[in-house]
């Protein structure tokens, strides 16, 4: 590590309508240093790096790159000054080739023409040099996620970035791929590249960071190093108080089978098999958690179970009722509640009032309508009741859902889904992007639903959440359920290996060895 200061940020503030995303943030990054930005979803990490990359303009404060105060007019200028960014959502053009994506914006040219051959040669050389195998002539849309990320990194390297921002790069990777990426990042640092690494995974931070900046509610709440910190301390800094590592709950008493699935398969959006021959049962009074790295078919599984995605199955029954080929409406009427993964996109209509959102999937039930005419008194009555019961912080039930915080939005969704007393609750990422107070509340609601006899299927990318809530854990990898464990004997490391595609037997072997 060098002592040369390449990036210095002082007093950066960014406000969005209604929110202060960053407040008085200061940060220094040296040449060859890996700085981890740690924080929960919504802590302001992305906003901070987007300002450094010129995508947002700070309202206050100063950015100095290599000693020079800059006012970045856009990414182009940031790129010119050596800032590169690997985005969480890949910024690639699917119908372009790898080479075209890499050179976009910095094309090798003769007059105004692209030198295609030169581009391919350069990209090939760059990929080889950094040990990243990728075919420059392949179309990006045909590549798997890991390869797309390599293209994204190559893009930054091609622009000779010496300050490389990586925004949650491990979110879409298996533990093994993650390890490889971490190694690559260390390699960059050794070559003098300053790396800013955004994550909320403590293990990764401790593994490679030289310095750790913890953000909470838009502010830097602490700076530390792996030597000084451990996971518990980091977690405490992130959330501001000790996290309940295990959720308090009574032991489960599973009863009859509610969800019974045999041989369920489903395709992804681009028509590739995403869920392969999954067998699954969930009983009344138990929580079954599905662990897995995102993108291993969990989303498709949930969508298939809720009728949103087409699927095939030998058996798919809810309360002994055949649900093969049922549409979302029919599944819903089998007493299934569904907390979707992306509540903003799929769970709520932002412009609608809380009241309308509370009956979004029940508005045509006899309770709320008669002969096609809506009964608004009943709707408002229910909304008033639920807002109180589920502690939704809102001025009124007429407030549009848009204007609520993430946690309160999620409470609206959970309230809606639980208010119908579902016999099966499918909850996908129920606490993503939700504040700590709301997390606890949501967890307790899920547990009390179980205690009241609901069968609960929980899908979460947060292993701790799965471990903490579930009575039984299924591990999903590449569209298959690769292992089933009782939560009592679940071991974090073992699940990690399973999530990476290691077989249960192998896991056993390694645990013996």
């Amino acid at each position: 590590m060098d002592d040369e200061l390449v990036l210095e940020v002082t007093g950066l503030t960014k406000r969005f309508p209604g929110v202060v995303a960053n407040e008085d943030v200061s940060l220094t990054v040296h040449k060859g240093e890996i700085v981890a930005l740690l924080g929960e979803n919504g802590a302001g990490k992305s906003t901070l790096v987007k300002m450094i990359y010129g995508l947002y303009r700070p309202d206050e404060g100063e950015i100095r790159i290599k000693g020079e105060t800059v006012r970045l007019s856009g990414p182009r200028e940031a790129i010119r000054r050596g800032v590169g960014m690997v985005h969480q959502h890949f910024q690639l053009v699917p119908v372009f080739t790898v080479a075209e994506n890499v050179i976009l914006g910095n094309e090798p040219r003769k007059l105004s023409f692209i030198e295609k051959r030169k581009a391919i040669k350069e990209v090939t050389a760059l990929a080889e040099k950094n040990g990243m195998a990728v075919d420059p002539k392949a179309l990006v849309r045909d590549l798997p996620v890991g390869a797309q990320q390599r293209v994204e990194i190559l893009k930054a390297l091609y622009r000779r970035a010496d300050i490389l921002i990586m925004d949650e790069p491990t979110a879409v990777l298996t533990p093994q791929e993650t390890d490889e990426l971490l190694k690559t990042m260390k390699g960059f640092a050794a070559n003098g590249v300053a790396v800013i690494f955004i994550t909320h995974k403590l293990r990764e931070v401790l593994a490679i960071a030289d310095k750790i900046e913890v953000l909470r509610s838009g502010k830097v709440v602490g700076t530390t190093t792996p030597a000084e910190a451990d996971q518990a301390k980091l977690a405490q800094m992130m959330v501001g108080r000790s996290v309940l590592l295990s959720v308090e709950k009574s032991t489960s008493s599973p009863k009859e089978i509610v969800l019974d699935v045999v041989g369920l398969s489903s395709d992804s959006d681009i028509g590739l098999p995403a869920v392969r021959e999954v067998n699954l049962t969930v009983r009344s009074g138990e929580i079954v958690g599905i662990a897995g790295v995102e993108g291993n078919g969990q989303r498709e599984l949930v969508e298939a179970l809720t009728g949103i995605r087409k699927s095939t199955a030998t058996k798919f029954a809810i309360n002994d009722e055949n649900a093969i080929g049922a549409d979302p409406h029919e599944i819903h009427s089998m007493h299934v509640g569904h907390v979707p993964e992306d509540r903003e996109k799929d769970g709520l209509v932002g412009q609608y009032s809380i009241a309308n959102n509370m009956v979004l999937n029940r508005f045509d039930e006899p309770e709320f309508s008669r002969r096609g005419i809506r009964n608004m008194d009943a709707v408002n009555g229910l909304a008033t009741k639920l807002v109180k019961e589920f502690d939704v912080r809102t001025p009124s039930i007429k407030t549009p859902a848009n204007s609520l915080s993430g946690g309160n939005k999620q409470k609206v969704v959970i309230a809606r889904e639980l208010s119908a007393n579902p016999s099966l609750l499918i909850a996908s990422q129920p606490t993503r992007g939700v504040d700590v107070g709301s997390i606890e509340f949501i967890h307790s609601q899920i547990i009390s639903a179980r205690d009241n006899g609901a069968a609960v299927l929980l899908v979460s990318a947060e292993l701790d959440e799965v471990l903490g809530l579930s009575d039984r854990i299924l591990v999903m990898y590449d569209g298959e359920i690769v292992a089933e464990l009782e939560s009592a004997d679940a071991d974090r490391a073992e699940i990690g290996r399973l999530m990476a595609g290691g077989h249960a037997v192998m896991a056993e072997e390694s645990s013996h060895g």
Partner: protein
Amino acid sequence: MRARWAWTITVIILVGIMFSYTQDELRTTSVLSFSLRYAIPLIIAAMVGLVCERSGVINIGIEGQLLMSAFAGFFGAAATGSLIIGTLFGIGTGLIMGAVFATGAVAWKMDQIISGTIINIIATGLTSFFYAQGQVLPASTPVVAIPYLKDLPLVGPVLFNNGLFTYAAIIIVIFLQIMLFLTIWGLRTRAVGENPSAADTSGINVQRTRFINVTLAGGLAGVAGAYLSLEAAGTFERGFTAGRGFTALAIMIFGAWNPVGAFAAALFFGLTQGVASQLQADEVVDIPPQFINMLPYVLTIVLLAVVAGRVRPPAAVGKPYEKD
């Protein structure tokens, strides 16, 4: 697969033309000339739509842009006594109309359909309101026969004995094909139309690219408009673009957002018109002309219905670019 049947149809048509040429040289070449002539404004107008859509902006205001620039081209030429100045007036007005549309659809992030609709309504209103009769063009645009090439059988009289705008249209098509797929401008434009966010993070100014492209496309509409009033018709009438701006959209889609493809599509539709009027002239069969005229539209709908998904507009078309 699409390419295969497109080629099959092309080959069948070409063989048909050859055969017809051996039967009656004059009829064949004159019908083909008619077809080309019918196709020319549509081709240029289709390029307007294509440049806009490749940049991620759907332009349904082409009709209005054509009308305004045909108007300005004609009255500019009539007032100044110069076809060249008239042409410049037309192109300039096209650029202005392009910039106005871009201001709404790009800079202000208004709904692109609404912006285009406004362009159409404004153009109809203004050209009718300000129309003045009795204006005459100072001269007619020259027909330029290209030496040697014009003497080629079949293609000579059809392709190489035309007005300057016709050559310009063909050059524009080839130029855009090259620009779009071989140059930096093309790569960036397509990136902006497919994934503006990716373009943005690669250091490309999405808004500026769109604004400039949409404005320049307006200039192309100016060329088409000037062609209509100065070369093709030699006059201006209220509403005389007769829906060509909309047909151009059909042609753009039929050509799969590809300049040369659109050119082929325009020629194909031109050919249907040419053959139809020839059948009427020869009193062979009595096909109601309405059916010939609806052909491009019917075929476009059928095409979209049948090969939907394979014929795909640029992914970001229609959406104003918002960061995040």
